[in-house]
């Protein structure tokens, strides 16, 4: 018995921080593995520092869940002639990260108004 495929954004639990940043990085265009690691670290202010092993396990799950797909291999833009595999976010992936962002925004709203009521936030 294999787990039922997850096709709906509501099938996904809140994203973990590293998953969130990987999807976030891919929103602005396709990337090869190392570029994802680098950009995730950069855009998260080094809070998400993935190493190769961790990244590819994560990518394997995202591929399996259909949040990310592979685009074809081609030379990297940064001037070496190695052919690399690039990853692209799928429409489902976009829906999932959007839902997560909304979830967090709602959470932030609730927290902010509670804090404000407490006078802890101006």
């Amino acid at each position, binding site marked *: 018995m294999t787990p039922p495929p997850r096709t709906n954004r509501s099938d996904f639990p809140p994203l973990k921080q590293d998953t969130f940043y990987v999807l976030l990085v891919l929103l602005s265009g396709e990337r090869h593995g190392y570029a994802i*690691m680098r950009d995730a670290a950069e855009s998260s202010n080094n809070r998400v520092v993935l190493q*190769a*092993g961790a990244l590819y396990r994560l990518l394997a799950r995202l591929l399996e869940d259909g949040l990310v797909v592979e685009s074809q291999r081609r030379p990297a833009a940064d001037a070496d002639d190695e052919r690399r595999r690039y990853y692209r976010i799928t429409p489902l992936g976009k829906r999932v990260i959007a839902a997560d962002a909304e979830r967090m925004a709602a959470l932030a709203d609730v927290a902010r108004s509670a804090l404000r009521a407490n006078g802890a936030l101006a």
Partner: protein
Amino acid sequence: MADFPVPPLNNGERVYRALLHLYPRRFREAFALDLVEAFRDERRAADRRGVSSAAFWLSTVQDLVTQAFSERMSSAWRAGGSVRRPLTLRLMSFHDLRLAARTLRNNPLFALTAIITIALGVGSSTAIFSVVNAVLLRPLPYAHPDRLAMIQMDILARHFMNSSVAPGNMLDLKARATAFENIGAIAAGAVPFVGMDGKPEQINYAVVTPNFFTILGTRVAFGRDFVESDGTPEPVPALAMTRESTEAPSGAPSPTMAILSHGFWERRFGADSSVIGKTVQIGRAPAMIVGVAPSDLRIVFSKWAGSVAEPDAYSVFRIDWSTASRINTGFRVIGRLAPGASLATAEAQLGVFGADLQNRFPIYKGGNAVWHAEPMQTEIVQDVRPAILALMGAVLFVLLIACANVANLLLVRAMARERELAIRAALGGTRGALVGQMFAESILLASCGAGLGLLFAKLGIGLLLRIAPSNLPRVSDVAIDPSVLAFAIGAALVSALVFGVLPAVRASRPNLAQTLRSGGRSPNLGGGKYLRQSVVLVEVALSFVLLIGSGLMVRSFMALEQVDPGFDPRGILTFTANSPRNPGTAERAAYMQTLETRLTAIPGVIAVTESSPLPLDGTDANLRWGPMAAADDPSLYQSATSFFVQPGYFAVMKAKLIAGRAFTAADNDITSRAIIVDELLAAKAFPGQSPQSVVGKQVLCRSVGPEPLAYRIIGVAQHERHMSLASAGREQVFLSNGAGGFFTGRWAVRTTGDPTRLIPAVRAVVAGIDPLVPLGDVMPMSAYVDRAMAATRFSLVMIGIFAVVAALLASIGLYGVLATSVRQRTAEIGVRMAFGATGGNIFRLIIGQGLALSGVGLVAGVAIALMLTRVLSSAGMLVSVTPTDPLTYAGISLLFIAMAALACWIPARRAAVLSPNAALRSE
């Protein structure tokens, strides 16, 4: 799998690629290429950021191993058909634990072997990791220690590195090196102390700049910190750190301000807080106690600052920095980087500062003096770091071997229990339950192993501390602390997961029908044979490498024992007797004369001398010397070690004179220009000339006065080992003590028997002349030699222990594989016997199998050893032996084969005495 050409790999990438085999095959096939590419990118980025390759590999391997393991676990679960869920230890229940405990109790031999193996691995690695943690990893005990740097000077033309600083350069240094928000200095040494009770003793004393504690970021426990006005110059320095001032001052000196160390305050003043404001005598001056340092203050760089131990008391330099000497070094300089400033900026500013000094002062230009700043932590550990890392590597081998051994044990056991598991599965035991139980057993084994291992570690650390060499910084901080504990538990847990669960997953997928169908027959031990054999092969190879390492250390230690230090340390008692009074040159000379005469009169004393320093006492003393031509060309000056000695020196030390004569009483005078040089200096100053012809010639030396003077060579001595017993070191100059102004260093008394039995008599003589002179550092000369061998002895004992443990574990592994093999081949052996094979044939068959296995391991071990032992020599751990020493390799190989034969003996014996009937029936 590759659908396009694999790019050429370098060595590191090949290693990484090989490690990818830890992943399940499906994952590996999908991502191997991308992982290698990402690895390559990460490595480049790490290189650019200047990450050390050790740190890079550590984090890479850690990432890879944990990820591969998690991937294996989750794919095992998914293959097993369970819904994907986070792996939690719901796997294991209390019931499982109880069952596991019972099972292990029923197999005490197995359980004990496994537990001891884990304990040895965890214990030894925890002990060494404690050292690594305390010495190399733990941040220094100061505020923002990464902002602290040590500023030093390299005098390149004299091959004299990391020199201390002359006080006259401090103001310029502060003005130029603005990347430092604060720059301070320290100089430390042993001085006499006389308390309010009038009792003298020798203490360790540091003189510092008023900002010293501020730079370290520490505050006095009570009283007050130093203030700038404490450093108001005195006509005469309170502590003569140099031989500059030789005359007694007129009138009583004003007191210097002193801060006591917490420990000294507790020991000497009974922790009495009313000491503040009291006056004591430190060195040759009165000192007013103004504060007590906090109890957690550690001066981890006291060795660097010139003291063998942490200071007992501190006071402030009272010198006029603007007129201080620019050539009398001796001040160790510490800087704290300003917020936002980088070490690179500081280095650049020091470069400009050094160039400026060279332009202004010919002596700096001639010496080609360059300045640099070193992060404090790096500087403190740089001498010991390579050796500690080599030991860490050795201990990781032990841990690996231990892991391999336990894996093997559990693997064999899991296979032997396949039928039991199959029956339980047939009776309705779920896979989860089966895996859970085996998991519980591994956890239990690992926790017991870790517990026992911690005990081993505690004992091991005790041993380590006893034999640790004195150059190991922060050694008193070595202890099992939380991070070390975490390391031990982590190691045990990883062991449990790797050893227990992989065999468990494997065992819990038994082919039920087949296993049950095999009826009462011998359990299926055939599977995994190659896996087990290769595990043992690795163990054999690794333990062989460790044995070679210990063999090389034994050879080094033997070589060190054979080294001729240039003197005979046997039968000599040494001590210091520094006066807290402030007498003039004549009184000092008279005191020394009296002491020498009275010491000589003690029955059992053959001769008496005094030397500053004594060889191997750990104090370096610099003297600038050059051929006469150096007067016009300062770049010809070189650095030598200077010894100021009483005339009896060469007789007492039994130091050999190659040519010329020793000092006489007539040379022992402030006006004397007679020197004795060692053979190295003679050869350097007068290349190609015989020692005899060098006698009578002149060289320039700068010792007492501000300028070099011409000295006449009266003798050429054999070179003595001074800063290290293992290597020759630089050239040496002996001057008469009188020429230096009769300052006392260490006394050396040659005796007829055991020198320590004269200690009471010596004490009485010293106190009899002046009760205010404390006796200090009383020890036989042989203790200094012993101390010089400590580092090698330490490495020898450590690597030796690891090698023995590793060899023991490998033997157990070898035994385990053969014993399994005999069990598995019992039927076959029965058939062979039925067809006429004798016990001897069978014995040879099994021994042969064992020796073949160890032979292959040995060949692999030799190859690895040839590569890795170079580390020992580049870490400076080997003495007079090459890392490929054929004798060591041959000897260790023989030893190793004998050991392997012994490990094979028992199973082979058991096979040989099998009765053919019984053997056949077992099928």
